């Protein structure tokens, strides 16, 4: 019924290799993209600046992390540190007179190099031990940022981003900042969907599933793992720079603390490991659910529906949020992406029951 399949034939290899083979999917994506591009016209500044913009940027961050965790199977609990390197590198580069476009690329490269060095641990250890190694990266980067005033910006450890323009578009107005962030997130999304179809993407999956089996069939684990850390850290570094220039516009060490790393891991897990739509849904959920719940509960309290103390009032959204995460993961351990997939499959053959996928 919806997602109509009848009349859709793939008569060439090219047609069969399309990203969205079903016309409805294609139209949905185009419609969403148009809506997203036009968002500054019809979304109020409050919602654009405090909801949509951070959502877009954190989705890009979740996509960067899920490349490493979902595709390559390498756990990373220090991804906020990778973003911090990108953010600080970009600000210092722009201040040194490097054009913003180039500074974005260079900050990505710097993150990629440092990220790959720490990723070297992955050559020796796996699983929980790798988690420990990446945690060490988080704390080392935190420590260096806080303790080197030349990086963090002196007494109050706040660095404001200088005024910049991207391809002659001044990154000053909310709309301009949003479009730049959206452009980067869309670029990452397209890249991610395509990387799965390349030999590099298949090598990552082989490494994830069993690294010595991958070695037997000719995938070099040494190279592939380092490449995974390099690529993912590059993406994360540029995202950190985008976060600094488009959203915060003043960088402090707390913005890239350990709790942010955990949030990123939560986004990837709640959304669904290694999934594109999961990264978007997961980022939206982890970032925005606490805000919506806080406002909802405060609204109810203001109208006298929940007469409780301020302290309890503040913790109530957290309890609901926690219950929601457990609920979603119990309902569907593969994350929000799988929930969407189930719904889509249901409508694929609706009103009949069984889907072939």
């Amino acid at each position, binding site marked *: 019924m919806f997602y109509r399949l009848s009349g859709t034939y793939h008569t060439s290899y090219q047609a069969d290799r399309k990203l969205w083979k079903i016309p409805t999917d294609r139209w949905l994506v185009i419609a969403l993209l148009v809506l997203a591009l036009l968002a500054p016209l019809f979304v109020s500044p409050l919602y654009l600046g405090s909801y949509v913009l951070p959502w877009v940027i954190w989705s890009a961050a979740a996509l960067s992390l899920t490349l490493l965790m979902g595709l390559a199977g390498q756990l990373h609990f220090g991804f906020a540190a990778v973003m911090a390197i990108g953010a600080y590198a970009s600000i210092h580069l722009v201040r040194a007179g490097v054009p913003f476009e180039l500074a974005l690329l260079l900050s990505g490269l710097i993150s990629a190099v440092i990220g790959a060095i720490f990723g070297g641990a992955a050559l020796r250890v796996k699983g929980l031990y790798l988690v420990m190694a990446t945690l060490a990266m988080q704390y080392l980067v935190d420590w260096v940022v*806080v303790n080197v005033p030349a990086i963090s910006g002196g007494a109050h450890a*706040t660095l404001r981003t200088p005024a910049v323009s991207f391809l002659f578009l001044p990154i000053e107005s909310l709309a301009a900042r949003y479009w730049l962030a959206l452009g980067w997130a869309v670029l990452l999304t397209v890249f991610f969907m395509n990387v799965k179809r390349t030999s590099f993407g298949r090598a990552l999956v082989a490494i994830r599933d069993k690294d010595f089996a991958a070695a037997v069939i000719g995938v070099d684990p040494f190279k592939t793992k380092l490449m995974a850390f390099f690529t993912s850290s590059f993406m994360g570094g540029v995202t950190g720079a985008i976060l600094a220039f488009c959203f915060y516009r*003043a960088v402090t060490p707390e913005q890239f603390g350990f*709790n942010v790393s955990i949030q990123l891991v939560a986004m990837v897990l709640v959304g669904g490991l290694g999934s594109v739509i999961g990264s978007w849904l997961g980022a939206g959920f982890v*970032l925005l659910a606490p805000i919506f719940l806080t*406002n909802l509960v405060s609204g109810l309290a203001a109208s006298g529906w929940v007469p409780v103390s*301020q302290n309890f009032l503040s913790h109530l959204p957290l309890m609901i949020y926690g219950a929601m995460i457990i609920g979603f993961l119990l309902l569907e351990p593969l994350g929000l992406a799988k929930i969407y997939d189930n719904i889509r499959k249901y409508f694929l053959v609706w009103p009949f029951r069984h889907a072939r996928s």
Partner: protein
Amino acid sequence: MTFLRKLALTTALVAGLSAPVAAEDVKFGLLQDFTAVYTFVTGQYNQGQQDYLALANAEGLLGEGNSVTAIVRDTGNQPQRGIEAYNRAKEEGAILFDFLSTPVSAAILDQAQADKNIVITPAHGRGDASDGTVFPYVFPMLPTYWAQAANLIEHMKNNGGLEGKKIAIVHIDSPFGREPGPILEALSEQEGFEFQAFPYASPGNEQSAAWSEVRRYRPDYVLIWGAGGGQAVSVRTAIQNGIAPEQIHSVIWLAETDAANVGPQMKGVKRFEATAAGTDLPIIQRIQEKVIAAGKGSGDQANVGNSYYNLGVATMAVAVEAARLGMEGGQPLTGETLKAGFEKISGFDAEGLMPAVTYTAEDHQGGGAGRVSEWDGEKWVPVSEWHAAYPELIRQVIEESAAKYKEGN
């Protein structure tokens, strides 16, 4: 997207319906961290703020028909949630904000200045925001950490002397912990003492490594610079390492809860205070009478009169006074008139709750006066008079740092 907007709209509508209607309803955004890092202070502090606003409304301090409303939200110490809460409260009409969180304040400072909204940063945030010429809409309001350090050092000077003495500064390893550094540096030359810094890792649940170093250093005085649970650990570990409670001097973040956690050995420990503690103050008495007894209190009655509760009361007493002065002459209250109201405040001491403060267009710290108090086993007893220590030095540090901010840091 439309779903999100609808949901949010409903929320806003529900929240909006319940707002009281008045001639002028002044809105303050108290968007604080109730659930993450600042939980040790926020609960009592915010309770004091809300109770004082209730008192102001009960007594009609803002004039006939006018009222003041607090918009209270949790930000969880996360900048992106603070930005959302700020933007929303701004739409609801708030003109004064208190985030009680350094990262959130830092993320919003520039935006609030551009929007001409007041941000008060009592006992948190940037000390150099005291320079009103560079930060026209930011009011640190109470003594900065620099002023606190100077006040404590001066107390040591007046009680035992500083010439040739050794001070150990044991601090949390964060920008906040490093704040007293420049003051100690400047004063050590001037007063002829030596000092050494001993950082411990955040959050400070375990400090024995730092304190065994301190013991080897054999300090005459100890300055502890941390917050929350780490403070009680500092005092306890110091005493275990043979440091007498009388030698310990703390930043403003040491309160009744910490004393209860440390136990009887806490007796003799000193701290800086910006507001008087206890219920034996006219303003607190009136809160008990008109707010608590009337059942309009916003939290646990046992907290009334605590150090952090009184701190919250003081911040709102100053803010309401500024609003009152800003509305004089009948003009509507905006960020700009509220700023003017702040700068009209002169010699205001909230009936003895705090030292007399005077704000000018240049000085948004209000003079930086405070005092030192000592834990006598049951309560905090003041051991010095309200005064500002080394005001010229503090002003110089403020202006130097503000100049750097102006350049872009």
